[in-house]
């Protein structure tokens, strides 16, 4: 029998007189020297990476400090973004403008900065991006894991999806600007306005209250094309690869026994997919967070298509601005110290936000997976 023959073989190898151990020369001095040099080089490289994280953050902190000091947490809830001084005429008790030497008496209102509009723009455009990207990504990941291997296209498909992530964001931006935005402006948005525009509780999507000469006027939003909808769509396309790739890995790690368990119970294909999604829910949430972090930080493409209006308008059909697009637009012209500092304050918020999203995502994707695989 096989067991028997193996025993015989082992016995034969071990048989005979004990063999003396071979004398091996010690490692040479040069190799020891090189060894310690390389060891230190590795330590240095690792320290540099840490330094590269700390340095920009501290520079950002120092530069943003004047604005942080001036506006504090109120920066997050103020919606005024005014880089210039404002001259306000002083009025007397009767409401008449006081004049002196033929000139209006004015007080100077210093520049004021608040991040609420860009926070809002970032949040809404990122949410729109997730709404577009997440169902697509999960469906694509399920396809890659469950269907594609059977028809032998899992490899090429994965490659294509990862390739999408390598396309420069400028390319997406140009496409959004010259193809998507005009399409939205001429086709999609007019269609939305003519169909949903009459629904009473959706009026916030199509109308805007504007103050003109002291009176509030309700005005229909123009079908601009370059708005949050367009920004969200472009962002959605851009975060699709990362969410798909990460959720593919998460779903690949779902134990076979889980899928077979539901199939053996008579689950349909889709019902067993639901079990896969349920099993991988923490990792999938992490994938979404990674996508969110990317959507919030994405600059070039969004700047090109979102319309860059530093104002809060509820409608997704209105132009808006994100934190990153504000920075891209204004940084070159921020001559005033406080203006530049306020921009860096925005950058700091963005950095902290992305860091938080990434930490949560890593914890959910990597932490969870390593824990489950460790338990197996």
């Amino acid at each position: 029998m096989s067991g028997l023959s193996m025993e015989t073989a082992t016995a034969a190898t071990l048989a005979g007189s004990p063999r003396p151990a071979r004398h091996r020369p010690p490692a040479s001095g040069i190799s020891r020297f090189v060894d310690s040099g390389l060891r230190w080089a590795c330590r240095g490289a690792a320290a540099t990476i840490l330094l590269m994280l700390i340095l920009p953050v501290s520079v950002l902190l120092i530069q943003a400090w004047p604005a942080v000091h001036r506006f504090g947490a109120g920066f997050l809830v103020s919606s005024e973004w005014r880089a210039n001084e404002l001259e306000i005429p002083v009025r007397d008790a009767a409401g008449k403008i006081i004049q002196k030497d033929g000139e209006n008496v004015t007080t100077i209102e210093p520049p004021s900065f608040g991040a609420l509009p860009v926070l809002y723009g970032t949040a809404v455009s990122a949410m729109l991006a997730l709404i577009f990207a997440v169902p697509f990504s999960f469906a694509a990941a399920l396809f890659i894991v469950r269907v594609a291997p059977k028809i032998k296209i899992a490899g090429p498909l994965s490659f294509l999806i990862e390739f999408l992530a390598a396309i420069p964001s400028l390319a997406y931006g140009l496409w959004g600007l010259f193809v998507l935005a005009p399409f939205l402006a001429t086709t999609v948005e007019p269609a939305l306005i003519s169909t949903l525009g009459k629904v009473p509780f959706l009026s916030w999507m199509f109308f805007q209250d504007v103050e003109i000469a002291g009176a509030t006027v309700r005005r229909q939003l123009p079908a601009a094309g370059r708005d949050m909808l367009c920004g969200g769509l472009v962002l959605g396309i851009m975060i699709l690869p990362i969410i798909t790739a990460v959720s593919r890995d998460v779903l690949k790690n779902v134990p076979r026994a889980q899928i077979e368990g539901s199939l053996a119970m008579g689950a349909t294909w889709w019902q067993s997919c639901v079990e896969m999604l349920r099993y991988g829910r923490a990792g999938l949430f992490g994938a979404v967070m990674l996508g969110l972090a990317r959507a919030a930080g994405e600059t070039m493409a969004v700047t090109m298509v979102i319309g860059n209006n530093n104002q809060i308008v509820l409608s997704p059909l209105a132009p808006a601005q994100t934190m990153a697009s504000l920075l891209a637009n204004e940084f070159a012209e921020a001559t005033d110290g406080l203006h530049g500092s306020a921009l860096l304050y925005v950058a700091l918020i963005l950095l902290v936000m992305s860091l938080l999203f990434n930490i949560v995502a890593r914890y959910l994707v990597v932490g969870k997976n390593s824990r489950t695989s460790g338990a197996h």
Partner: protein
Amino acid sequence: MTPAPTSPTSPGTAAPAAAPATEPSMSAMPLVSRPVVGIASPEQSATSFIDAIKAGKPVTSAVHPSLLKADHIVKVDDFQLWYSQNKALHGVTMGFPRSKVTAMIGPSGCGKSTLLRSINRLNDLIDGVRVAGKMTLSGDDVYAPKMDVINLRKRLGMVFQKSNPFPMSIFENVVYGLRIDGEKRKSVLADACESALRAAALWEEVKDRLKGSALGLSGGQQQRLCIARAIAAEPEVLLMDEPCSALDPIATLKIEEFIRSIAGRITVVIVTHNMQQAARVSDNTAFFYLGRLVEYGPTADIFQNPMLPETESYVTGRFG
């Protein structure tokens, strides 16, 4: 990945070149006609039979006469299965008697799990699987092109080697089968949950935390939960693929007690590496080797008085 349509067992193609049995029961039991009661000849040593299998020569399964006449709920007739180029099952012919516990034993790679997973067609999931021959469940051709695999699996419960509770509450795990059938009545679900958990001897341990996560249970409890999940859907056959291989002796004992307790009510097919377990829980035992059914008979006979010397040497631990 549809299994190759089976030419309905054209006699003499791939069938072992065994002399067909001419028993009167043959017409009544067409599916169990091929295995012949192999009589162990005294000069046939344990190695010669095994060597014949290793050499790929057709061999004749030794099937105890009582099993040829039994009422079989699952019938397997000259069933063959390939994983791509590798043939895993070589013309297995046997029947699983209704409401009995049948154990399948044999060394690793003997095809016992493959045969088990062929019954609920879980092997369909694996790339490159092809089958030939015939298998029926209560008379329905399992591999017929018109067979709805989802409905087939709804009729069969399965317990896996490693417990695989779903990441949801204990209650939702047990009623999973009813849920996917669209059952919404709370009382029906609650009753099914309780009776299944009672049958799996888990009720007393979890009745106060049915809403708690199933993943908080111990390994043995999780496996009994999976059993409860399988029997809550009231399957015709309960398939068990080495259900105790990842459990400690006490948890194993509880599962064995469960199997004994439902014997006579549900048909159980259990694959096990543990021969003592097969001896303890099963009514009949089938011994497989390298994709062939070697001997099949009442458990007592297989372990104490087998027909073939190779069966005896396997069950006494002398090879395998």
